[in-house]
């Protein structure tokens, strides 16, 4: 038993280091760093490359990685991205670090190559037992991990609570101006925190490397497990986070002797402990301030931020454009492309476009969930996977018709959405994002690993449907089928937006207090949207599975879900055309690279998706709206005599920015 406890403490210490860095950087900047796994992966790979490939001594590699590369990277990321996030809305903060996570993980593989290193050498080459306590041997490596975790914990605590640095960072988060007036430059302090944090992330990455191997997924799952500690520490408390992370590691280890030899408990319980604890901690602690989505405790973006000015600018250009011609430009291009595909491209590409439109159906779920209900839903991919799996079960195992199975699967997904929504929707935006991510990771471990669903990782067969007497085995027919379903779902979403519900959702997005004082049921409305989104995702899952003839559970992992989120958010989460473009780019991008570029560039699309999502910091309305605004500006410039009344001019922009400032603000 004691040996399990020690092993658990070591794993817990690794979680704890990541959790502590997250807590410290969150305290310093209020940015919840979803990209931590990607950062650790990159820095660990740097160390491995210097040490093994270049052949530098371990100490030199370590110093170069965490004392030179890590701080430079921390400064660079702070300069171009992280430093700009503190004034952004919570949604943008999350989307940007999720984009960064996607870009960094893929970029590292792109940079260092594809070969998975399964057992890289860590800091200590010569692992041996150094101490024996009560008959349990403790190795030098284990001592090192536990020791570093303790040092980081004490260091974080002292930094945040006992030094002027902590005071300045906390002050800078609440009011940068006030901190400046005290004669300190908070920017230097916050940048310094990111640089130091990056070094610790790098060190943790190097420590964790021998255990998980050098692959992005392994790093992400360790960091995701550390989120449990962070949540238990309510994002800000160092000791609770430390203890929580240790608890997760220990629990994961001490249950081993009690597990049966086979069955779901054996396979699913251990890996799902962190996420179960995360959900329990969120629900149990949700009475506290900041966790619940209270009217009073909502985070509101500062209107003076660059992002808000950009929104104001785009809105001033787009003003009065309801039903205007530029709205149809994108649709016309999309329509022409889809109609022309079968006549211009070979059968292979028609198939790729069919996959893309199937993805697009699934991605439409982000419009109700993120676009309307403003939930950063990171488990949408799990609903898609549940839809795929359920379609396979209904059609192949129970022999129902394919289309009937798809609709039933959508209902199953919607039901799962109801459960997740009941837990996540009362939470604030950040906690809801973490909770949905925890659900996605749980689904990975508990649902998608079930032998019935995964069929030994081969997936369960799903046939193509027969529609209107045509058996849709031809990719061209299937493309039209997916386009038709996409249009039907889009029409439903469009009709909802123009109905009374649409007016209500707009009000809820703009002001919760206003909505509640008008008698609008906020929770019920948002729950309805979330369930609708899950249903759409499930339907999309069925269509994807049927297109590929298989419900392959490995295709719906939480990690891939981050990429999906990044792709959608870059297009604008409430844009229907954006969902189509996002779906197509998810299918066409990798196919283009696979066919025309060398295989070592396979990660290029993912890097681009991540970078596009990061761009949301300067274009919060998404690429589509930004491009429409640019088309309008261009058109107005080309036809100066017929300027649309919304033409942007500096004065309009200023007025907008000023008039949007709440009364009583310091401006």
């Amino acid at each position, binding site marked *: 038993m004691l040996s399990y406890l020690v092993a658990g403490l070591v794993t817990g210490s690794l979680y704890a280091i990541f959790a502590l860095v997250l807590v410290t950087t969150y305290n310093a900047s209020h940015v919840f760093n979803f990209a931590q796994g990607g950062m650790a992966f990159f820095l660990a790979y740097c160390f491995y490359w210097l040490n093994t490939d270049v052949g530098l001594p371990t100490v030199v590699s370590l110093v170069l990685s965490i004392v030179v590369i890590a701080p430079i990277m921390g400064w660079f990321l702070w300069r171009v991205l992280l430093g700009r996030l503190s004034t952004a809305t919570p949604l943008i903060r999350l989307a940007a670090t999720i984009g960064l996570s996607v870009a960094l993980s893929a970029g590292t593989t792109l940079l260092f190559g594809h070969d998975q290193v399964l057992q890289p050498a860590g800091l200590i080459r010569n692992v041996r037992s150094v101490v024996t306590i009560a008959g349990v041997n403790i190795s030098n490596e284990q001592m090192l991990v536990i020791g570093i975790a303790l040092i980081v914990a004490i260091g974080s605590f002292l930094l945040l609570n006992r030094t002027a640095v902590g005071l300045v960072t906390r002050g800078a988060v609440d009011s940068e101006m006030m901190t400046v007036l005290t004669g300190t430059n908070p920017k230097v302090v916050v940048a310094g925190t990111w640089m130091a944090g990056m070094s610790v992330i790098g060190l943790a990455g190097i420590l964790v490397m021998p255990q998980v191997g050098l692959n992005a997924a392994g790093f992400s799952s360790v960091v995701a497990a550390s989120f449990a500690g962070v949540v238990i520490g309510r994002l800000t408390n160092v000791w609770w986070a430390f203890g929580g992370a240790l608890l997760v590691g220990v629990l994961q280890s001490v249950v081993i002797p009690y597990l049966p030899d086979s069955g779901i408990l054996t396979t699913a319980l251990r890996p799902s402990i962190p996420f179960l604890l995360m959900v329990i901690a969120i629900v149990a602690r949700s009475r506290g301030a900041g966790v619940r989505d209270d009217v009073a405790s909502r985070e509101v973006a500062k209107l003076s931020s660059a992002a808000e000015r950009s929104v104001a600018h785009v809105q001033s250009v787009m003003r009065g454009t309801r039903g205007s011609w530029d709205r149809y430009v994108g649709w016309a291009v999309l329509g022409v492309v889809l109609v022309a595909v079968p006549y211009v491209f070979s059968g292979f590409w028609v198939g790729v476009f069919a996959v893309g439109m199937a993805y697009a159906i699934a991605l439409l779920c982000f419009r109700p969930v993120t676009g309307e209900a403003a939930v950063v839903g990171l488990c949408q991919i799990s609903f898609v996977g549940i839809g795929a799996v359920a379609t396979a079960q209904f059609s192949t195992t129970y022999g129902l018709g394919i289309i009937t199975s798809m609709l039933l699967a959508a209902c199953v997904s919607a039901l799962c959405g109801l459960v997740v929504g009941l837990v996540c929707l009362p939470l604030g935006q950040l906690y809801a994002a973490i909770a949905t991510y925890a659900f996605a990771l749980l689904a990975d471990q508990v649902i998608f690993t079930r032998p019935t669903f995964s069929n030994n990782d081969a997936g369960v067969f799903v046939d193509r449907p027969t529609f209107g007497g045509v058996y849709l085995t031809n990719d061209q027919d299937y493309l039209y089928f997916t386009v038709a379903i996409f249009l039907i779902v889009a029409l439903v979403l469009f009709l909802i937006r123009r109905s*009374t519900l649409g007016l209500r959702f707009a009000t809820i997005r703009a002001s919760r207090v206003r909505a509640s004082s008008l008698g609008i049921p906020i929770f019920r409305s948002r729950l309805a949207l979330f369930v609708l989104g899950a249903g759409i995702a499930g339907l999309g899952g069925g269509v994807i599975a049927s297109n590929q003839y298989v419900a392959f559970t490995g295709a719906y992992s939480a990690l891939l879900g981050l990429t999906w989120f990044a792709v959608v958010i870059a297009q604008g989460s409430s844009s229907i055309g954006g969902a189509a473009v996002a779906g197509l780019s998810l299918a066409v991008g990798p196919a283009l690279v696979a066919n025309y570029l060398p295989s070592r560039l396979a990660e290029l699309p993912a890097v681009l998706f991540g970078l596009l999502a990061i761009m949301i910091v300067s274009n919060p309305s998404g690429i589509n709206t930004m491009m429409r605004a640019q088309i309008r500006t261009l058109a107005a410039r080309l036809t100066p005599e017929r300027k649309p009344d919304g033409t942007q001019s500096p004065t309009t922009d200023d007025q907008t920015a000023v008039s949007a400032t709440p*009364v009583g603000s310091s401006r």
Partner: protein
Amino acid sequence: MTAVADTKVGEVRLQLSDISVNFGGVKALQNVSLQARSGQVTGLIGPNGAGKSTLLAVASGIQRPNSGIVRLEDQDVTGARPQVYAHARMARTFQAPQLVPDLDVREHLVLALRSNNHKPGSALKSAFGKRITTDEFGKTEQLLAELGLANVAAKGVRELPLGTRRLVEVAQCLACDSRTLLLDEPTAGLSRAETAVFSDLVVRVCRDRNIAVVIVEHDIDLVLDISARVFVLDFGRLIDEGDPSHIRNSKKVQAAYLGTMEADLDV
């Protein structure tokens, strides 16, 4: 949007009894009672930090009181969600107008008109066909004309100046067919001329529709001019209440305002 003629003037619409609110150790309100009657403007004044806005938040269900009772008409709504208050036909405005940037002025009113329709299926109204029915269009036209907003009906609220945005919020409250209306510092940031227009409007609407209006204001002259009854808060306690002439001469009120009131009141 006819005037509420089924009740007589002067009946108690809103009754706050012994309301106390604590924020941690801070006692924001201590045993405060207040009534608002139909067809009358009830004023609520007090220095900064006196607890006026907190009391309004309690009266509209946004803040739950630690103790005390809130009654709307004859219904005990203490501790209920703000939606319950809205269904009991209470409406309020906010210091910073809480309007929807995505909607134009008329859409704000249409949403409010539909807010009292709880029939199943009403949520999907106008999913098909016209976005705004002829009947709704007529009602909004009437309301927009009444508040002088006819020429901005199709404008997005971001384009409107502060005073107009406050009027839109009032219009939205009236479109809900509210019987009790709470106004939180409605004239803050308005010019003298805009304030005059606004106060005339409040008096007119209150009288014509027999609405109980509660107004929280820093502009004491305005409150004393239009209110039938005035309540004065200081440090979370009700220090005086009465008609405007009583308040003008109240020593307690003058003391609360540390003499600055005297100069104002002597005018």
